[in-house]
């Protein structure tokens, strides 16, 4: 026998519904908490969504946020946020900061005078300072970008549910959508909680999470459908456990390889895309969890029509709606 790394033992008989009150409860609590945090803290929108200007500064001298702030004070730019950026990929003499200026009046992005004034003031503080990037979005465009982002997320949810509905049954589509909303909401909650910058690429990350999570869910559903046809008489709950157990090693393996690649990017990929990569990494963890613990619970709760080939509504076995609560008591 050659050596094999087994992340999951060959045969597993885990009852994934055993702790369903706990897992489903935790999921519900996390979703509610995310909504509360979103309302209380709000998202830390980048300039894509609220307009304004960000200037990245780089210098051989250490960043002195207070001095920067003092230098920009006389310019009367309104809300100015200065944050120092740290990254393991930076060299010793690489000191980076991010200056964010809120949108000025008018539809225009920013006037060249404003940028010149800011750059001039910062050069007074630190003559070696350079400006590797300057980005500016006008309030008109940022409003539209928010709209587009919301459309994108909604469109993806709708398109996915239609696809699942066509390929499976409507109950599966509902289960998939609930788990997707769960993933997106909790990821956004984390962004709100830690005030991580939320911009256009974060939306791309959210959609990627949706894609990955549905990918995972579909694999479980696919196996469930196969088992439903194979074992016509076994209760839905058992079949679900069987399906998840059978696909568990694949789920863990794929999440493992994806996470390994993403963690490399998270650590080594530089600070510019760290927010983006963080969102995807977090989302993949939560997506894996939700396809095991959320999607199929919803399907179980809704029940599945099991009389495809013999339409006999009188047969009690084929028309049984199993509720998760019933199942839990038995177990």
């Amino acid at each position: 026998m050659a050596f094999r790394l087994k992340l999951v033992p060959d045969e597993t008989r885990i009852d994934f519904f055993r702790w369903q009150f706990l897992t489903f409860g935790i999921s519900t609590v996390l979703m509610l908490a995310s909504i509360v945090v979103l309302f209380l803290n709000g998202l830390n929108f980048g300039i894509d969504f609220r307009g304004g200007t960000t200037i990245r500064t780089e210098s051989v001298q250490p960043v002195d946020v207070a001095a920067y702030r003092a230098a920009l004070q006389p310019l009367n730019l309104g809300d100015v946020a200065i944050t120092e950026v740290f990254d393991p990929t930076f060299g010793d003499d690489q000191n980076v900061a991010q200056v964010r200026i809120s949108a000025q009046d008018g539809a225009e992005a920013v006037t060249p005078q404003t940028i010149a004034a800011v750059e001039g003031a910062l050069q007074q503080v630190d003559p070696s300072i350079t400006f590797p990037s300057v980005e500016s979005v006008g309030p008109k465009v940022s409003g539209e970008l928010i709209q587009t982002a919301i459309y994108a997320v909604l469109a993806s949810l709708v398109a996915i549910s239609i696809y699942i509905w066509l390929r499976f049954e409507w109950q599966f589509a509902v289960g998939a959508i609930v788990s997707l909303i769960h993933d997106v909401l909790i990821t956004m909650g984390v962004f709100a909680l830690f005030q991580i910058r939320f911009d256009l690429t974060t939306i791309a990350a959210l959609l990627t999470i949706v894609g990955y999570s549905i990918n995972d869910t579909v694999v479980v559903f696919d196996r469930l459908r196969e088992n439903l046809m194979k074992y016509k008489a076994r209760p839905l709950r058992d079949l679900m456990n069987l399906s998840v157990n059978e696909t568990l090693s694949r789920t863990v393996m794929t999440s493992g390889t994806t996470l390994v690649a993403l963690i490399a990017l998270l650590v080594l990929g530089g600070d510019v895309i760290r927010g983006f990569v963080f969102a995807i990494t977090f989302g993949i963890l939560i997506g894996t969890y939700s396809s095991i613990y959320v999607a199929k619970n919803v399907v179980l709760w809704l029940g599945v029509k099991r009389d495809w080939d013999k339409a006999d509504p009188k047969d009690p076995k084929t028309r049984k709606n199993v509720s998760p609560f019933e199942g839990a008591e038995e177990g």
Partner: protein
Amino acid sequence: MLQIDRWKRILILGICLLGLLFALPNAFYARVEAHNDAVAQIEATGVETPELAAARDGWPSWLPNSLVNLGLDLRGGAHLLGEVQVAQVYKSRMDALWPELRRALSAERETIGAIRRVQAPEGVLSIEIGNPDQMARAVEIVRGYSTPVTTLTGAGQQSLAIATQGPTLTVQLSDAEKALTDDRTIQQSLEIVRRRVDEVGTREPTIMRQGADRILIQVPGIGSAAELKELIGTTAQLTFNPVVGTTGDAEAQPGLGQIIAPSVDQPNLFYILEDSPVVTGEDLVDAMPASDENGLPSVNFRFNPTGARAFGAYTSANIGQPFAIVLDNEVISAPVIRSAITTGSGQISGSMDFDQANRLAVLLRAGALPAEMTFLEERTIGPELGQDSVDAGKIAAAVGFVAVVALMILSYGRFGVFATVALGFNMLLLFAILSVIGATLTLPGIAGIVLTIGMAVDANVLVFERVREELKTARGPARAIELGYEKAMSAIVDANITTLIIAAILFVLGSGPVKGFAVTLTIGIVTSVFTALFVTRLLTVMWFERSRPKQIEV
């Protein structure tokens, strides 16, 4: 049993080799780029210098030379989103219409009475007539200036919308005409922006229309968005006006039909000019940088026949008088006419260096923008930041690749090796397709590639796990492998189609970097399904045929 037709094998291997061939130029990015630039330059100028020839020969011409385009966030450059103020054109159309209407209406003063233009919003022409009873006649006259508009929605629309209220008659462009005008304005602006950007000769700028009245401009390699704005924002309105006199007082009141314009190079010198120009830049057909008789930088220009005639007539009538060359309401120079210029060509010289002469020639050639542009979004990314991102992305991708490979080989042994080979081909095919279709790689696109590395093995994992299961029940390893591929298929298809849906939405709704992410994700899905299903299968079959194992371990 477990077998693949010979022609299928050749096809699979052929695709992999093509992938290798077309991905290859990206491994020698700088060299291939120099080669492509040199070829383009030799073709454009017809001159072959030793340096150009060396750069060209740095990459054999019989090999593919398409490269993955690097997006602005990786190469550095400037990005602008401009909104064309299309309504300005309505105003100038109405302003131009007024003198004509005045003439026509005045001719029938006896019936409709005295007329005057009254205050109205921009783009609307309001005329008050002295005799409101005869409004119908006035409307009839105005209607004579309206032309039928043909649109997609149907004919029968007029170019002018005319309304009356009491003694006031208002004229404005109809909605159909506005739509047509907007379209023309944008097309014209696009063309002018394109010409101006092209003139400075940067590599592969993106200039495209976005939505109804917006223009997206992305220029790699340019220093900053401000520089780009300056290049496209300058109106370059060139006129040749008769000079009435000069003054040192900026507040001096010029006479009727005269304007005051400052000199570009002499402070406190102002010219009083006739307002109506003799010739304008619109009559210019060519302008190029040159040197004047003293060897100083200058710009040579040539008029079209109309301009040449007007200029010839004016100069022959005004020998000894000065005339002013005015650019954007500043007098560049005011030479004295020494002789009649009937050839239709001339020279602008003044205090400028060769760069400025070049710029001026560019601006003159391109002409003026039909309407102003306001900039809604602008981004500048320095080339170093882009390079840092590329370097970091490369390292991360390499580490990610190695980690995934290690995990696969540890978990699936020999089959993990097969999956690794497939993953390698997957990357080659991904880069080959990106290069051939000329897709743009952005920073999120790099993340898409890394994500693909992680997710690409999913199809393999599905198959291998299935084979493991089938080994427990099926008769013999060959059958198990067969069943493994067969039964994993539906899950693989569903999983990848859902991801494709997401990628499509990202592509349609995303912009710039996000679009780049969608592109790499989409291509990554396609290539990973191909390599996972066909390449690993081919490898498995080939190994199986050679060693004929009685039992296998996955």
